[in-house]
């Protein structure tokens, strides 16, 4: 692999500084990669691809009739995060999940933050994932978001910015673990004395987090993972995590709610369930309470949750916290609940329902990124600078029709990372999704999922939209 031809660009480059010199913490891995001849590299790339394919590490693309399963493209050049940077990220993430959980407790109980005028009522009550039916309902240990995946990007100066919080069913952690396993197998020589922090304790940490909220006194609570089924895009991850934690992976039809308790149907009869790590959205959990047409959920499940006989992770109603409008208020939340300044910055956000912002958005559509307030996966999004006139007009219509549903942000030309393209190295935009667990203690998985936009110049890193991923190395010192 030739490093000499690689150039940074007019934005933050993870590998090289503004003068084109390799950053010190990248030198070890860069030298070792540069030592690989094209033949050896090609061979390794093929074995990587085969490894993923053979193990069926795939995801499902919606709206694609034919190829239901695809391998998530993987780039072997690892992203390196030095120790001191990670310390800041970690502290910032802990601060953020703490504030979000306090916020969720508050909006489902006293609603002080609204009464004190810090967050306008319409932000909370207008969020489509706010669940008024859960006001006054207590959840075990007051924990709402047990698992959080927060997306970070780096601006031109290398500052880490929070792009969004995923506090419902964040996915991607299985790729973090599988990417590392694949790298160790195919590029073992990169690891020697590199000081990379391991990631493999995540499944046991997750299990501890889930057991922590078990409602009854039971040394061995029955924890299950609830999946929508094999056709869900993240099914590989569901099955992977269940296997790693040695818990049952269940579908709605495997569960039954009776007299306020939840049981699973086994070959030996019914067995009570204590904690459900659900990978299904609120809407589909219980046809008696939410969507009537859902056949993925369990009738009576919500009643059992209300009675405190079963715990859900994440809790019902967390969507109000990762709403893109609420996002704009997270720094205020941190100041309000924790009396601290936010450690991590975030992207300036215009809210379409504020008259001034609304006018600004409509006047500057071609310069902005417009997002639907509660969509994920890169769907329902406009990237002004690369959009066609028709797309811009379409969004003008949508924003005008339902301003509460839209926010806009300036385009952040986020950082790039050298990525293998046709045997050479080219810069491609990357983001980072670290995973935070809120249990007895708060744990941040060192690293997270680095997603890379494989199309030149593209800022969309989502797997469903042509993104790939990299192994992420957090250095111990």
């Amino acid at each position, binding site marked *: 692999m030739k490093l000499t031809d690689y150039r940074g660009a007019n934005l933050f480059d993870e590998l090289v500084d503004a003068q084109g010199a390799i950053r010190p913490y990248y030198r070890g891995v860069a030298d070792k990669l540069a030592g690989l001849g094209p033949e050896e590299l090609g061979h390794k790339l093929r074995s990587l691809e085969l490894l993923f394919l*053979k*193990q069926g590490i795939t995801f499902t693309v919606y709206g694609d009739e034919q190829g239901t399963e695809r391998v998530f493209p993987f780039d072997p050049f690892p992203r390196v995060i030095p120790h001191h940077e990670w310390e800041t990220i970690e502290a910032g993430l802990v601060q953020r999940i703490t504030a979000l959980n306090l916020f969720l407790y508050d909006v489902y109980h006293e609603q002080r933050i609204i009464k004190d005028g810090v967050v306008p009522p319409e932000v909370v009550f207008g969020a489509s994932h706010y669940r008024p039916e859960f006001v006054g309902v207590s959840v075990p240990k007051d924990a709402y978001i047990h698992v959080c995946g927060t997306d970070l990007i780096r601006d031109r100066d290398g500052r880490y910015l929070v792009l969004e919080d995923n506090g419902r069913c964040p996915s991607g952690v299985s790729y973090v673990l599988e990417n590392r396993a694949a790298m160790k197998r195919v590029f073992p020589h990169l690891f020697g004395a590199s000081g990379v922090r391991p990631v493999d304790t995540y499944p046991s940490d997750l299990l501890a987090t889930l057991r922590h909220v078990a409602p009854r006194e039971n040394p061995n609570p029955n924890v299950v993972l609830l999946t929508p089924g*094999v056709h869900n895009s993240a099914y590989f991850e569901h*099955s992977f995590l269940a296997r790693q934690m040695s818990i*049952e992976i*269940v579908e709605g039809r495997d569960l039954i709610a009776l007299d306020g308790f939840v049981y*699973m149907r086994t*070959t030996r009869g019914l067995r009570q369930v204590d904690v459900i790590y659900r990978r299904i959205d609120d809407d589909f959990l219980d046809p008696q309470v939410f969507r009537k047409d859902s056949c993925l959920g369990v009738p009576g499940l919500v009643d059992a949750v209300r009675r405190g006989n079963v715990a859900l992770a994440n809790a019902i109603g967390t969507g109000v916290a990762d709403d893109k409008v609420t996002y704009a208020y997270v720094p205020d939340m941190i100041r309000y609940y924790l009396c601290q300044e936010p450690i991590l910055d975030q992207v300036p956000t215009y809210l379409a329902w504020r008259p001034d912002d609304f006018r600004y958005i409509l006047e500057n559509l071609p310069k902005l990124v417009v997002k639907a307030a509660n969509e994920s996966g890169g769907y329902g999004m406009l990237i002004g600078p690369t959009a066609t006139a028709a797309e811009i007009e379409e969004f003008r219509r949508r924003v005008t029709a339902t301003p509460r549903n839209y926010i806009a942000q300036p385009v952040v030309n986020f950082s790039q990372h050298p990525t293998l393209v046709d045997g050479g190295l080219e810069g491609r935009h990357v983001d980072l999704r670290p995973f935070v667990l809120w249990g007895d203690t708060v744990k941040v998985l060192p690293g997270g999922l680095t997603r890379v936009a494989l199309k030149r110049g593209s800022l969309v890193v989502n797997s469903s939209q042509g993104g790939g991923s990299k192994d992420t190395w957090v250095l111990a010192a």
Partner: protein
Amino acid sequence: MLSRVADHLYWMSRQMERAENLARLVRVSEEMLLDDESLGRGSAQEYWTPVLAATAMEGAFRGLYPEPRQGDAARFLTLDLRNPDSILSCIKQARENARSVRDKISDEMWTELNALHMLVTSPEGAQLLARSPHSFYEKIIASSMLFDGITEATLTRDEGWNFLQLGRLLERADMTSRFLDIRSQTPAGDSALESLQWGAVLRACSAHASYRRLHGGEISVERVVDLLLFSNEFPRSVRHCLRRADEVLHDISGTPTGRYSNPCEKITGALLARLSFAGPGRSWPAGFMPTSTSCRRSSTAPVRRSSRPTCCCRAR
């Protein structure tokens, strides 16, 4: 164990076994057909009719291929997804079932099944089938056997193991009885041809070596039936498979052998009794046909169908 998981495991191993047996059947049939053609005996159509009938897919085949041409029957049984019981359909369904229970099977089992799936769905697989059908079927048979061996070597002997065994054993008994049907429905009337055809049945059941060791090279219908239906020792004989299935069922329920606590145990018990009393050689052919048919009927009974039409058993 979740009931649904038991269901997936049972059908996964049944479908693997079915794919393997179909591969053996098509491979042997194509070889036989070459002999027939070179001797100018009968048409390919006449030849395939009983084979298709034995897989219970004759009607579906006629519907899809009203005027079948050479190779259509083999294609229909191998890579035709419109045939829910083609080799390809079976492997796809087996993999879907495996995907649902990945946490219950070993990584090595999954890798092997996934590799087989990649082979039969890839252009390379289709090319191999066109260039060298023999190698193609060989690969499927070998992969299924490897899967079985990996299962044996990597899986804890718990309830899941029992359901895997049950699926495989019942499918094996079912397939062996179907292969016997092929020839018993069309007596050749010519003793030289008959021994050729029954030799093919032996090969389709991987039983030729066992047969030779027991009886030498001369093929007699009675002895073939003896081996494939009544043998206690040959692992693909109907009786052997049913006896093992009966044991597995008792393992699952915890009921002592010889007694029963559910309809499945009752059915296997009754079938085994019939096989014992029919006895080798004596009551064939009078008692033979009903036995193999009822074996097939009951093989679909032990696990009640849940809500998955994709892995549904043969409609009979």
